[in-house]
């Protein structure tokens, strides 16, 4: 519930583990998250994809919980568990009936230090990860995104995809993976969050028992490869089998803690449809770019995205070119609209609507403990959990002049990378046998 967004308590254990706790008693469930401050931004060339692969290995067992045991135990208790790796973090979670949460607390404490990385399991997982990348490669958007991102970031590790480059997936060793695990999976590099039906004092006491004695590790190596200034527009063409063209435009955007982030996020809502912690499920049929591209029958869909990242990232726009139209036509119409917006053509009504939409989405997002726990741990990673708590207040403070100013400063051609996916003919054949 939105009125329960406050009442988060924050604790730092002696070993450096940050713990956030929030009681919600409307349903008998608890969500438990452990996030490590490591993702693809921490990966050197030659080890791209290592964070994600380590995430997979965390499901391959410890002495206490051999591979497969927790999969079954959590299903037996009626819970869910999973993990996600991004550019900026690797996170693990369990959501369980409240009286079963002990299982999750034990599981994460155990695999923070005792994952086995059995050599046979590492090799079996290599083919699974390669298969995961191949599955993504089946999608034209994967190729377009990978190539455009690589062009947008020449130096910073945001250059590569979370899944990693195929060549590295073939060459990384068990020793590389284990070293990565030992370096980054330490309490001083982790954030743990519980949201749901518990008593804070009891929960904190149990967390201290299970996690308090895990030794902290050496200081985490900093990410030092800052992206240099961009000197002019960059363009990319990806030509592969397919039958549909796509356009991806990425403008340099500030990091999530930058004061301009919320301003540009409202520009994104006005241009491409609302989003806020809690979702983006409102549709965007009244957005500027829908009217410019879809209602004019140039594109069949358009979307946008602002991601609150640790380092400066991209404000992105993606359009699917309508059957019978060309990317040139779509790009021209898109550019015309972006120039209008950069020139200050944004109204107070549009800004008010974007703020109202964010309020509704934010309220929806507070209705599940899993969602709330995610946003608390996610924002603590790049800023502070208060970034999430004060999200609406930050948006509210943005004025019409602010968004016009942000649009003018950030929507500059010289600061963008434009990628086109151009389909080459692919004949699909069926044969019976």
């Amino acid at each position, binding site marked *: *519930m939105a009125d329960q967004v406050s009442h988060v308590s924050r604790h730092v254990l002696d070993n450096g583990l940050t713990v956030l706790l929030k009681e919600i*008693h409307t*349903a*008998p469930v608890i969500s438990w998250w452990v996030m490590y401050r490591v993702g693809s931004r921490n990966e050197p060339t030659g080890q791209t994809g290592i964070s994600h692969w380590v995430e997979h290995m965390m499901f391959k067992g410890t002495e206490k919980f051999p*591979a497969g045991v927790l999969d*079954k135990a959590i*299903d*037996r*208790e*009626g*819970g*869910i568990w999973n993990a996600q790796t991004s550019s900026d973090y690797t996170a693990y979670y369990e959501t*369980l*009936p409240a*009286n*079963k*949460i002990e299982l999750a607390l034990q599981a994460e404490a155990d695999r923070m230090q005792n994952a086995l990385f059995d050599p046979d399991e590492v090799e*079996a*997982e290599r*083919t*699974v990860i390669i*298969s995961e990348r*191949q*599955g993504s*490669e*089946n999608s*034209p958007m994967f190729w377009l995104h990978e190539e455009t991102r690589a062009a947008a970031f020449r130096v910073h590790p945001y250059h590569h995809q979370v899944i990693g480059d195929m060549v590295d997936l073939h060459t990384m060793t068990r020793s590389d993976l284990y070293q990565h695990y030992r370096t980054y999976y330490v309490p001083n590099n982790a954030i743990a969050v519980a949201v749901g*039906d*518990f*008593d804070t004092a009891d929960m904190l006491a149990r967390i201290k028992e299970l996690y308090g004695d895990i030794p902290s590790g050496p200081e985490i190596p900093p990410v030092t490869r800052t992206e240099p200034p961009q000197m002019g527009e960059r363009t990319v063409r990806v030509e*592969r*089998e*397919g*039958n*549909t063209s796509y356009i991806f435009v990425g403008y340099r955007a500030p990091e999530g803690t930058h004061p301009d982030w919320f301003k540009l996020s409202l520009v994104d809502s006005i241009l491409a449809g*609302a989003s806020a912690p809690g979702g983006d499920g*409102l*549709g965007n*049929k*009244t957005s500027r770019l829908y009217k410019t591209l*879809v209602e004019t029958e140039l594109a*069949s869909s358009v979307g946008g995205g602002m991601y609150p990242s640790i380092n400066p990232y991209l404000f992105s726009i993606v359009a*699917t070119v*309508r*059957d019978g139209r060309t990317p040139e036509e779509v790009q021209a119409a898109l550019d015309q609209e972006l120039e209008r917006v950069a020139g200050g053509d944004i109204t107070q009504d549009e800004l008010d*609507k974007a703020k*109202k*939409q964010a*309020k*509704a989405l934010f309220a*929806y997002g507070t*209705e599940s*403990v899993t969602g709330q726990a995610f946003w608390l741990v996610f924002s603590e990673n790049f800023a502070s959990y208060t970034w999430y708590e004060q999200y609406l207040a930050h948006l509210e403070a943005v004025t019409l002049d602010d968004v016009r100013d942000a649009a003018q400063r950030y929507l500059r051609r010289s600061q963008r990378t434009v990628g086109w996916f151009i389909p080459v003919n*692919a*004949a*699909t*054949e069926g*044969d*019976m*046998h």
Partner: protein
Amino acid sequence: MDKHTPSFPGPNTISHYELANGIVVLVHENPHVHSVVMTGSIDAGSLFDPAEAVGLASFVASSVMRGTRRHDFSAIHEMLEGSGASLAVSGGLHTVGFGGKSLAEDLSLLLDLLAEALRYPTLPANQVERLRGEIITGLKIREQDTRFMAGKTFRELAYAPDHPYSRQTRGSVETIGQISLEQLRNYHQQHFGPKGMLLVVVGAVQAQHVLRLVEDRFGDWENPNQPAPPELPALAPFEEARRQTVVMPGKSQSDIVLGFAGPSRFADDWQAANLANSILGMFGMYGRIGAEVREKHGLAYYSYSRVDGGLGPGPWRVIAGVNPANVDQAIEAIRAELRRITTELVSQDELADNKANFVGRLPLQLETNEGIAGILLLMERYQLGLDYLHRYAELVEAVSAEEILSAAQCYLDPDCYALAVAGPEPSPGE
């Protein structure tokens, strides 16, 4: 740790009404949230599609939010998006479904627009043409999707051509291109009506108030022409394995769908089949198939099974995405597991684990408005009774290992199946 042991929705907390015109309304009050969720269906799905116009029902469903007698496209979506609300209507096989969400105070807006869209859509020509192009672009994108192509081909193999389950609800580039505005308007006039309509509302609302809003907007809806859903043709006998490969140049991974026509949700052995499926390809990160194909052999990023169990004999499928070089090995591993589950009793441990999962997951499924609304809709659609959630544990516990074996034998056969593979051309030497 739980201070509350809230009872699941049941006869005392679910309000159930039937309007004079046949519309059934279920309301569950959830005061712990700010929002309201609405979901439901009408009996106008693609079962009614003529063979030469497959996709017609779905096209109509997608068109009804494009303009009504009271509001044009822009006005409809301005009202929704401006309030932070959403509403969508989409075509399925048996039904046209709808779903919406808003802040609780905007429920009347959702119901107003739903009533307009279902009862008084204008299907404006320019909007229909715009939509047609969007649908065709979407269909062409799907033709490049290995997962979609394997699923589509599987349906064509598993069901006879005259069976509606062999077709694609959304139609094809050819059929969508040829459907006329008149066909769309006639379809709406004939098939959209109150008979068989279900409407579920869950959220920070009062049941009596919801009923008044629904009565005002739908109480006088009549359509004397609305036909009853057609009978499904009998399933054709299946005497040998049917296999088809779809070659898609430029792809990296192959998708496999291997399966059968499965039980409907009304089948006596539904619960046994559902447990069999869980053991086969779901429980503990994808069941026995996940353990063999993904975990033991590292052949796939995903490999699992699904039993649909809808209003008719929907598919029971094993789905896997594998490296093209591993296709045959993965198929053999899947068939070995089918052989095992159709010849051996499942162990008591597996049975106990899977039953515990079925019962234990209810608190999570019922945490949100969406979760409650989804289950209430199924309870009404399949006539499970308002006390279903209270009886559920008992129903699951009653299933024996022998009944699971018998259900598996009834629907699955390791030698006689429909198999579709979609992926890149084989490398030289393979």
